C-alpha cells in the first residue's frame, strides 16, 4: 500500500459488541510493497480482532525483524507493539506473557525470522505451549534483505537473481505438529474467508496457536516453476543489475470451497496448489493430521485449514502454576517477605 491510502470512512460502519467499528482496529499506513500478501494478512487480523470483540489495548503484538515483522505497526494501533530483534520474538513474547496473563498475545514472524535464525526459539515456544497466536507470513524468501531464499523456499524454485534453491524446504506446520503444538493451521494470504475464522480460532485457543500463512512476495517471490517468460521490464532491470524496480501489483485473492483444490497464479506467473481440508476433517487426531500433511507435501499440495488442535491444551501458566493474578500486578505486600522473615533467614545462616 502507499502512503496515500485515503483515510475516508463511511460514518455508519457496523460496530461490534464493544461498540467499536473496524477502524478502531487499524494501524498506521503500511509501507510494504503494493500487493504484498502480508498486507492482506494484516487486514485479516484487523477483521478477526474486530469480530472477536477484543479490546485493542488488552492485546500485545510482537514480532521479529523483516517485512512481515513490520506489520504489527499496520494493525491495532491502540495495542502496545514490540518489534524486537531478528528471530527472537518467541522469547520476548514468553517474557511478556509471563508478566501478565490477562492480555492476549499476538506474534507475527516471517519464514526467515522463524525457520532460520529463529528456529531454536520457535521449537521451544511450541514446547512450552505459551498462550499466544503465532503467525508466520510465509513467502519463501527474505523480503526485507532483497529476496534471498529462506528455509521454506521450495526446492527447485528460482529466486530473483536466478539462483535455484537446492535445499528441501522446512514445513513449519508439520514441524509444529511433530513438536506437539496444540493448534496448527495453514492458510493463504488472499483467502480472507478462510483466514479470518482461523485467526479467530487461534486467538481463542488456550495455548500456542500456530498459523502458517502462504503470503506471496510481490517483489522477490520465488515459487516453484516460476515461468520467467520474456518480459521487457525484467530484462531491463536484470541488465542494469539493480533490483530496484518493483512494478505496482494487485493483491492476489483466492476463494474456494472446503474439500476442493485451487491453483493460484502468483505475481511472477508461477502457480501454487492449495487444498482446503474437507468439512468432515477431524482436527483432533494428531497422527492423521501428520499423515495428511506428509501426503499433501508428497503431492506438492499445500493443505489449508485447521490441521490439528488439542482440546486439552494446558498452557505454560497452568503448567507452572503461576498465580491467577497477573504477576505484573502484584504489589510489594505480595512479593516482599519483609524484615521479620529476613531475620529468620539470617539466623539460619549462623
Amino acid at each position, binding site marked *: 500500500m502507499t502512503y496515500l491510502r485515503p483515510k475516508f470512512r463511511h460514518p455508519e460502519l457496523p460496530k461490534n459488541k464493544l461498540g467499536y467499528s473496524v477502524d478502531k482496529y487499524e494501524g498506521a499506513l503500511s509501507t510494504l510493497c503494493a500487493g504484498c500478501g502480508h498486507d492482506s494478512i494484516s487486514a485479516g487480523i484487523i477483521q478477526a480482532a474486530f469480530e472477536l470483540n477484543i479490546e485493542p489495548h488488552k492485546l500485545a503484538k510482537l514480532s521479529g525483524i523483516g517485512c512481515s515483522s513490520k506489520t504489527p505497526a499496520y494493525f491495532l494501533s491502540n495495542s502496545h507493539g514490540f518489534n524486537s530483534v531478528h528471530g527472537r520474538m518467541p522469547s520476548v513474547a514468553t517474557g511478556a506473557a509471563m508478566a501478565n496473563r490477562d492480555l492476549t498475545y499476538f506474534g507475527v514472524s516471517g519464514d526467515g525470522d522463524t525457520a532460520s535464525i529463529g528456529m531454536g526459539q520457535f521449537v521451544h515456544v511450541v514446547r*512450552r505451549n505459551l498462550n499466544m497466536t503465532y503467525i508466520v507470513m510465509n513467502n519463501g524468501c527474505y523480503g526485507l534483505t532483497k529476496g534471498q531464499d529462506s528455509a521454506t523456499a521450495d526446492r527447485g524454485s528460482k529466486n530473483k537473481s536466478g539462483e535455484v534453491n537446492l535445499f528441501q524446504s522446512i514445513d513449519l506446520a508439520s514441524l509444529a505438529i511433530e513438536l506437539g503444538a496444540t493448534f496448527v493451521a495453514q492458510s493463504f494470504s488472499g483467502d480472507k474467508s478462510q483466514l479470518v475464522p482461523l485467526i479467530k480460532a487461534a486467538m481463542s485457543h488456550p495455548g500456542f496457536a500456530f498459523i502458517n500463512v502462504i503470503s506471496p512476495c510481490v517483489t522477490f517471490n520465488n515459487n516453484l516453476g516460476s515461468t520467467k517468460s520474456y518480459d521487457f521490464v525484467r530484462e531491463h532491470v536484470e541488465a542494469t543489475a539493480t533490483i530496484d524496480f518493483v512494478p505496482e501489483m494487485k493483491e492476489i485473492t483466492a476463494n474456494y470451497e472446503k474439500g476442493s483444490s485451487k491453483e493460484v497464479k502468483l505475481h511472477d506467473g508461477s502457480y501454487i496448489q492449495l487444498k482446503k481440508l474437507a468439512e468432515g476433517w477431524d482436527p483432533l487426531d494428531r497422527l492423521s493430521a501428520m499423515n495428511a500433511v506428509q501426503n499433501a507435501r508428497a503431492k506438492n499440495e499445500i493443505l489449508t485449514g485447521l490441521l490439528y488442535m488439542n482440546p486439552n491444551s494446558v498452557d505454560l501458566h497452568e503448567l507452572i502454576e503461576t498465580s491467577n493474578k497477573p504477576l505484573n500486578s502484584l504489589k510489594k505486600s505480595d512479593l516482599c517477605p519483609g524484615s521479620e522473615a529476613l531475620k529468620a533467614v539470617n539466623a539460619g545462616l549462623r
Partner: protein
Amino acid sequence: MAGKKDKVNDFVVRFANVNGTGSASANFLFTKAIFRMGIPVTPKNIFPSNIQGLPTWYEVRVSEKGYLGRREGIDLLVAVNPQSMMNDVKSVRTGGYFLYDSSKKLHAEYIREDINYIGIPLMQMCNEAYSDARQRQLFKNIIYVGALAALLDIEFSVLEGLLADQFKGKEKLIPMNVKALQMGVDYIHKNFKYPLEIRLERRDLIGDAIMIDGNSACGLGAVYAGATVVAWYPITPSTSVVEAFGNYADEFRVDKETGKNNVAIIQAEDELAAIGMVIGANWNGARSFTATSGPGLSLMNEFLGLAYFAEVPAVLVDVQRSGPSTGMPTRTQQSDVLEAAYASHGDTKHVLLFPSTPKECFDMMADSFDFAELLQTPVILMTDLDLGMNDHISQPFAWDDKREYNRGKVLNAADLEKIEKFGRYLDVDGDGITYRTYPGTHPTKGSFFTRGTSRDEYATYTEDSDAYHRNMDRLIKKWNTAKEIVSPPQVYQEKNNSKNGILFFGTSQYAAEEAMDLLKEEKVIVDAIRIRAFPFNKTVEDFINSHDKIFVIEQNRDAQMKSLLMIELGINPEKLISVLNYDGLPITAENIIKQITGNLNHKFKILDAKN
C-alpha cells in the same frame, strides 16, 4: 611465614579431595565450626570442570585479624587424593603439616624433611567400621574432620550442634556422623601430640554476621526486590543464583490461599532466549532478571543493545569466571567488565554494579531493579565465582519495611487522561529519562510501538537524521543522570592522607583492605576507594584527581576497569598503575603489596621476611 611460634587463629588449611566423594559437606562442617567459634574464617573452593574423579581443593583461611582474602602458604594440608598428592606435598610451607591416609605406607618420594606428617589410616578405619562402600567413602570425610577438631582445638560441641542443624528432620543420621567424628578425634588423641601450634581459640569476632555465598544472596535479594519473572540457562558459576531464587520463592512466594506461585521461573533454551524473556517481561511491567556467566553475556550482546536503545529495563547477574571463551569455567576472574560496559554494537553503555560481599549482593540485587526501572535500561550485577560460589562471612541481611519499590516513570490510565499527547521518548523532565506505559493501561491513550530502529519522540518510526541524533544525545543525558543515581563508591578516609591511592572493586576488596593494613604497618600510607557502580559517580573522579598515583587493582589481564576510567573520566593513563591478577585464583594481599611496593621502589620487610 616460616617461624615456629604458636599461631592461634591465623593459618591456612587446604583440603585436597577427589570431586564427587562427598567431601564438600564435610569440609563445610569444618569451616562453619570455626565460624561458630567466633573466629573469622574464609573458605575457597578450587574445583574442576567435571563431575567426578578429578582433584578438587578447599582452602580455609583462619584470620584473627579478620582478613578474609585468600593467602598463599599452606600451614596444613589434608591430603585425601592420591592423584594430586605430589603437588600437594610440595605446596605445604616449611614447618607445615601434611595429613594423609596412612592405610598404605607413604612412598619415599612424598617425604620432605622440612614438614610434619600426620598419618591417619582413614581407609582402614572405614573398612573396619562400615560395610557399605558408599558409607565408607562418605564417612572418611567426617573422620578427618574429627581428627582436625582434635589437632586444631575445634570444640566438639560446636560440631555436634552443626550436625543437629544439618540433619534436622533426619535425626537418625546424627549419631552415625558423631561417631565418625569421634573416631577421628580418638585416633589423634591416641597417636599424636595435640593440639598443634596452629590452632583455634574461641573469640567473639563474628558478632551477628552470617555465612553464605554470594549467589544465594543474589537470589534472596531478587525475591525481596519483587522479581517475578526469571529466565535463565544453566552455566557455572551462575547456576546457583537462580536455584537459590527458586528455593526462596518456594518458601516466600507461594500464595497461601491458592497454592499458586507468585513467580514464574523459566529455564530457557539458551542465553539469547533468557535475556529475551527478561526484556519481554520488563517491557510488560514485571520485574525480571537472568543470571549468567561470560559465554552467556557474549550471546546476549544483541539483545542488550536492543534494551539500551528501546529503553527497556533488565537486570542481569554476571557471575564472572576465567575467560575468554570457555576459559576456566571453575576459576574466578573479573574479566567481563569491558564487555559488559559496552555490550553490543553501535554506541551503547550499560549500568554495572560491583558487589563485594553477600550482603552487598543482596542489597545491590534489590537496588538493581530500582535502577533498571528508574533508568529504563539494563543493569548488570558484576559478581564473580569467588563471591558467588564460595561461602563468605558477611554482615546480616537487612530490609527496611518502609522501602518501596521504585518503579520509575510509568504512567497509569489517570496520568494519561491528563496528558495532551503522550510521547514515549519525550524528555519532559530534562533528565533524559522519559515516561513509559505498560501494555493494557488505557483503551486509547499511551500505546506505543517499541523497536530497536530509529524513531522520534513519539515512538514513530523515522529515518530522519536529526531525530536520530537527538535521541542519541538524550541517551547520553540519561547516562549522566545515572551517575548520581547508581551506588556511590566506598571511600576509606574522610580526607586524603597520601598522594597515592588504591582503587578496587568486587572481591578484590578483601585482599586490598589487608594490603592497606600491611602497608600501613610499613608506614606506606595509601588512600583507598572502592568502586561500586558504573557509570562513575563524581566522587570517583574527585578521588582520582586529588591523588598523583592511583593503583587500580583488578582481576583480569587487560586492565579493564582502568580502561573504563580513562574512557569515561578522561584520566591520564600515566597516573593509573595497574595491579593485576589473572591466574584464576582470588587475588592475595601479598600479590598486591608486591606490585605496589615494586612500583614505589619500597623494600618491604614483611614480604622479604616471608621469602
